[in-house]
């Protein structure tokens, strides 16, 4: 029972971590309809920014607060130099250009920060563990992730569905000219939204940094995962991304926690131990394929 | 005239709370030009979509040539001889006018799982395609890319594509939308010349054209057919005058 609760909590925590990774992408990809493979690069650079500022200020919180505006500036710059030329293009052009950006940013980071990875220490107030039940400790930092993930989810939902800006973004994505005719500077709006996406990417990067590690190409690892989550949820739906992240989080955790034992009930131990990891590795792709076969535009995507 | 070629039984289509098609039963006879009119938002395009197989009705039945085709998709209906044109011009912009029609001929000629022979030089495709272009008056524009044709020409091209499949019934969704007076006049002539050879269901806002061409007219308001009859009957129908035409718009 205690084990079950622990693994469920792990699933929630992992789901929220994945939502964090995908949050920026729901804005740029989900709403602006821009296939930005370089989202992972923004996540990586955000984490390096955080490392630099944390080392500089000697404070996790201060460093994080400085990294976010830096990421905003970077996002705005990338948007102005490259992305704004891609909105009207087809997805293939977007894939190609942003694939190029990945290569560029990976090398840039190596030039600026060197090839060795970086790590950030946890601030002391979340470094320990909290007993969720007597004798069952749980990492305090994972609770921090749960909180930040939930806050970001609420913030995004509010931003997209409740604010004028959100309305304009959604309208602008489907009909730029109409929104432009309303007297809104659509170019500026998109620049800001992309910058905001970069901020979310960097936030994910710096939140993940103490668990994962800051390294070149760290964005490539999470990129596909983030896309998978958004696609399962349905492009353009914050709710979809959230639900998808939670489902994927639980499936991933339970795949790892129970599948090996489950297999042992009808396979030999040796066969089970080699089959189990294979199954848990491909599980999320199977889920995604199944969802898309069942609903070709994702769980909450708009039907054409 | 002959038997009903196309017949619907109480078609219903809802979008959320909105009923776009509300128990529509109409029929089109072989050789007849049946016009469907109605104010904007009456559900004409939704009805065409259900007739052509682009959308499925929530309930009701579509019969073509005596058979239930409700479950068939668009390509399958097209192969049975039920072809449509689109309200918003829909041609293949990267292909020449001739290739556009040739593809339509090809669609009618059976399966296209032929991988090596050059279809562009295939006389079995080119000759009927060229004849089709001549028919709609585009004979001298055959080698022009569809994207370079004028709006009116593209609408003509659409008709040529629809005809190339030798359909038994043609669904025409506002073929004159966006046309100038000259182009419209030419289209009316074209449609008149086609009358009698096949059934046609014409959705159109241009009342001059409708009353000039239609054998029968159905009036669709809020997803319901409120009247069906000849031009004279429709003109005289008080419900139509009230609900749709108003008092001053008999034209």
């Amino acid at each position, binding site marked *: 029972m205690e084990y079950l609760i622990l693994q469920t909590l792990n699933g929630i925590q992992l789901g929220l971590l994945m939502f964090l990774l995908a949050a920026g992408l729901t804005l740029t*990809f989900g709403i602006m*309809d821009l*296939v930005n493979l370089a989202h992972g690069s923004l996540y990586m650079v955000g984490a390096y920014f955080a490392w630099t500022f944390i080392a500089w200020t000697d404070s996790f919180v201060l460093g994080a607060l400085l990294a976010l505006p830096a990421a905003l500036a970077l996002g705005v710059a990338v948007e102005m130099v490259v992305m704004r*030329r891609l909105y009207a*293009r*087809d*997805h*293939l*052009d977007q*894939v*190609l*250009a942003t*694939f*190029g950006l990945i*290569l*560029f*940013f990976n*090398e*840039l980071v*190596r*030039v600026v920060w060197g090839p060795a990875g970086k790590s950030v220490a946890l601030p002391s107030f979340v470094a320990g563990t909290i007993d969720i039940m007597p004798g069952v400790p749980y990492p305090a930092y994972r609770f921090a992730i749960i909180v930040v993930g939930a806050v970001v989810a609420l913030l995004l939902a509010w931003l997209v569905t409740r604010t004028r800006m959100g309305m304009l973004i959604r309208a602008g994505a489907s009909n730029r000219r109409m929104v432009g005719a309303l007297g809104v500077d659509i170019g500026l709006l998109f620049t800001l939204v992309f910058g905001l996406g970069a901020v979310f990417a960097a936030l994910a990067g710096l939140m993940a940094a103490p668990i994962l590690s800051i390294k070149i190409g760290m964005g490539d690892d999470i990129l596909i995962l983030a*896309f998978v989550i958004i*696609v399962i949820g349905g492009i353009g739906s914050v709710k979809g991304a959230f639900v998808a992240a939670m489902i994927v989080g639980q499936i991933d955790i339970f795949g790892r926690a129970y599948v090996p034992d489950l297999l042992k009930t009808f396979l030999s131990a040796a066969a089970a131990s080699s089959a189990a*990891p294979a199954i848990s*590795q*491909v599980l999320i*792709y199977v889920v*995604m*394929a199944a969802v*898309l*076969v069942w609903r*070709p535009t*994702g769980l909450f995507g708009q039907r054409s | 005239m002959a038997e009903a070629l196309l017949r619907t039984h109480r078609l219903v289509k809802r979008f959320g709370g909105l009923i776009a098609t509300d128990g529509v039963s109409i029929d089109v006879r072989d050789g007849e030009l049946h016009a469907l009119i109605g104010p904007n938002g009456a559900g004409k395009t939704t009805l065409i979509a259900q007739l*052509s197989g*682009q959308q499925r009705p929530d309930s009701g039945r579509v019969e073509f040539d005596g058979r239930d085709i409700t479950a068939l998709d668009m*390509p*399958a209906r*097209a192969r049975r001889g039920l*072809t449509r044109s*689109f309200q918003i011009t*829909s*041609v*293949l*912009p*990267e*292909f020449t006018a001739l290739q556009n029609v040739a*593809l*339509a001929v*090809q*669609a*009618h000629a059976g399966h*296209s799982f*032929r*991988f*090596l*022979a*050059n*279809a*562009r030089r295939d006389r079995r495709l080119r000759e009927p395609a060229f004849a089709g272009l001549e028919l709609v008056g585009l004979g001298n524009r055959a080698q022009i890319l569809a994207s370079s044709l004028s709006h009116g020409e593209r609408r003509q091209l659409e008709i040529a594509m629809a005809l190339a*499949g030798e359909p038994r019934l043609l669904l025409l969704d506002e073929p004159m939308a966006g046309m100038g007076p000259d182009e419209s006049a030419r289209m009316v002539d074209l449609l008149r010349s086609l009358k009698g050879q096949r059934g046609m269901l014409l959705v159109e806002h241009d009342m001059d054209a409708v009353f000039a061409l239609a054998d029968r007219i159905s009036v669709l308001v809020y997803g319901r057919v409120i009247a069906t009859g000849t031009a004279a009957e429709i003109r005289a129908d008080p419900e139509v005058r009230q609900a749709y035409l108003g008092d001053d718009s008999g034209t």
Partner: protein
Amino acid sequence: MRKILASLGTPRGLVVAVLLLAMALLPVIAQVLDQRYLLSVSTRIVIWSIAAAGLNIMLGYGGMVSFGHAVFWGIGGYAVGIFAHHGVHDGWLQWPVGIAAAMAWATLIGALSLRTRGVYFIMITLAFAQLVYYVAVGLEPYGADDGLNIAGRSQFSGLIDLRDRGQFYWLCFALMLATIWFCARLANSRFGLVVRGAKSNETRMAALGFPVFRYRLVAFAISGGFGGLSGLLLANHDAYISPAMMSWVKSGDLIVIVVLGGMGTVFGPLFGTIAFFVLEESLKPLMDMASKGTGEYWQIVFGPLLVLVALYARGGLDSLLGRGRARSRHRG
């Protein structure tokens, strides 16, 4: 014949003729210059361009962005590797099975993924490729991620000796020519026109009576088949297979090549592959010449180059040789 001669008058015809002639003579040239590496790289170029030509059917003609095409390399490669691992080196068996397996897998995932459009299609093809990739990573009997060394190259009843680098190159070259020829024919066949028409306007094609799904599915299978062929050649070239040959970055490379060369063009895939390899081979030394030690950062130049291609060179290299047929692209 007359047509071929006439085409020599155009810039494209001339470039292609000179290029193909040079490629046909390459083993001799490499011998004379004593440059075995040139032959090795050229073999790789020829093999890759077969896969690129296959992907071009999807991408260029069909407008379907398959982001998992490297998986067919893997399937073709593993067909050779697994047979060889069990002591079966007969190419008459290995090759048809490899190609058939690639086509079968393409048909299977095509049947599922062609229900989706646009970005969903990109992602679902990627997901299926990742699936196969991870299965191969866990495939312990066949080396898992360490891959598999192939003891002997495919044998064809003694007709041709693939261990001979020159013979192997010529075989690959002949297969590449056959692939390009087939793709060129395909593009203008009834089938090809349906696939291209569906790229241009899917709804219209359906309204004309084409069951677009079936044609796309067959296009996917053909495209995958060429991927499989390329993969089994690659396995023979390297005498080694591993899951890395189907990582998503390799799928990305293939897309880059097709776009770089010119989508929907006959020789674009070949141009793209050559350009890709020349860049990879020369960017590093060129940068080192400009400023010593910068060469290892060559991707900092290569990346923005791709961005520029996407932004400003949408016709690819092929369009540098003058316009073929007019080509425009649609969003989505």
